[in-house]
């Protein structure tokens, strides 16, 4: 089930941040929203998941108009959404096990044993077996992200959102997280939306990419077309460093 956004507008205090964005986030693919800092990536994502109400336009989840739903109707969709936040957003006072178990406790009728099995399965999937009783403060940044991913997939979501999954991580750990998100997308055939400005991520897992510039959808494509595009803005974003510019010169 894909996510379609149609002509979304969103502003704050008279300033329009998102300007008429339309896009289809495809099922079974890693859909990337990229752009410079302050371009409106996070605001757009918060509009899609309903943390912000759009000023106009619509967000459609699997054919159902999310924007037109009331709170109770949205809840049904929300239980199908898993989200990985920029800072992981793990509950500090809960252990790893309790964090991953939280959505199961709230929205499933599983017995305690079944929930524990599911938690262990999810933790194993993100390669964090036997870390059940540690607290978020005892984990590294990469481990926290993986716990957050385990929590996000606990309820077998149809939609996975990842807000800057690599922020604060070293390049090697970033690739581990990217590959994990990619593998989960394929394994469960879910619609994954990733917000990033990390070009390593784009080149690693960018299957369906939207480039946002000052709140507008400037370009769409995939990781292959992004390196060859003639669009000046995109080129400056992709080849931002002097080294990359020289590399591009040599390649061309």
């Amino acid at each position, binding site marked *: 089930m894909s996510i379609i956004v149609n002509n979304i507008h969103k502003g704050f205090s008279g300033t329009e941040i998102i300007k008429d964005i339309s896009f289809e986030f495809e099922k079974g693919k890693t859909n990337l929203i990229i752009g410079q800092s302050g371009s409106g990536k996070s605001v757009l994502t918060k509009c899609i*998941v309903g943390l912000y109400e759009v000023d106009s336009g619509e967000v459609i989840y699997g054919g159902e108009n999310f924007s037109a739903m009331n709170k109770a109707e949205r809840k049904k969709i929300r*239980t199908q959404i898993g989200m990985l*936040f920029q*800072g992981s957003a793990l509950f500090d006072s809960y252990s790893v096990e309790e964090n991953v178990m939280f959505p199961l406790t709230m929205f499933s009728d599983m017995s305690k044993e079944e929930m524990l099995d599911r938690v262990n399965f999810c933790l194993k999937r993100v390669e964090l077996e036997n870390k059940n009783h540690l607290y978020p403060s005892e984990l590294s940044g990469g481990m926290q992200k993986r716990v957050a991913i385990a929590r996000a997939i606990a309820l077998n979501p149809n939609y996975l959102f990842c807000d800057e999954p690599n922020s604060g991580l070293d390049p090697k750990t970033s690739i581990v997280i990217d590959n994990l998100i990619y593998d989960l997308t394929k394994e469960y055939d879910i619609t994954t939306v990733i917000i990033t400005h990390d070009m390593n991520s784009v080149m690693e897992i960018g299957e369906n990419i939207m480039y946002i510039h000052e709140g507008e959808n400037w370009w769409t494509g995939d990781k292959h077309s992004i390196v060859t595009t003639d669009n000046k803005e995109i080129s400056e974003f992709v080849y931002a460093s002097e080294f990359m510019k020289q590399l591009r010169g040599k390649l061309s």
Partner: protein
Amino acid sequence: MIGQAFKKPEKWSVLRKNTVLEINSIGISSLSIVALLSLFMGAVMVIQTAANIDSPIIPAYTVGFATRESILLEFSSTMICLILAGKVGSNIASEIGTMRLTEQIDALEVMGVNSINHLVLPKIVAAIFIFPFLVLLSMGLGLIGGGLIGTQTGIITLEKYIMGLQYYFDPFSIWYSLIKTLFFAFFIATIPSYFGYYVNPSGGALEVGRSGTKSVVASSMAILILNLIITYFLLL
């Protein structure tokens, strides 16, 4: 916010579990400060009352009587709740404010959890449940503290002190204090929750600190105003 807080919880078992945790966090952890304050304030009241009564026509048991009235009517409910507004209020505001800052509240909302209900209702229930016990404890310890200092320093004999405590005792004084405490508990739980929940996340740690301060000032003001209103309606 209050409307959202009192909506039907997603799971009653989760509310129960969270309420027990909150009782421990905002109630049990305040036991020592309440006990210490009450013992010392009771002792100070006895000394001050005795020091201000130098007329031979005023009976000695008046010291016990005056201490009882001060502790039961005002100190154990209003003063202790003001202290708790500082201790518990800043704790609640900074806890919820930090959750807002670190996107934990967004995480709850995205999952489909009513975050206000999940975070605030257990605090309200816990405060309303545990604060009356803290106030009763404070009353007992305040009177004991006064008795201890009075008898140990020779200000008053134990018999006279107890006679003063029993003199014209109206049990309604205790009910009056407990009724006030229920209102205070509600505001001590909700006002800081409001300031924490609606903290501006772009303000960072500074804003969380400010929300803590604002919440303590606002809850203290609410307690003082409520104290006046409830006293007017219950005692006049």
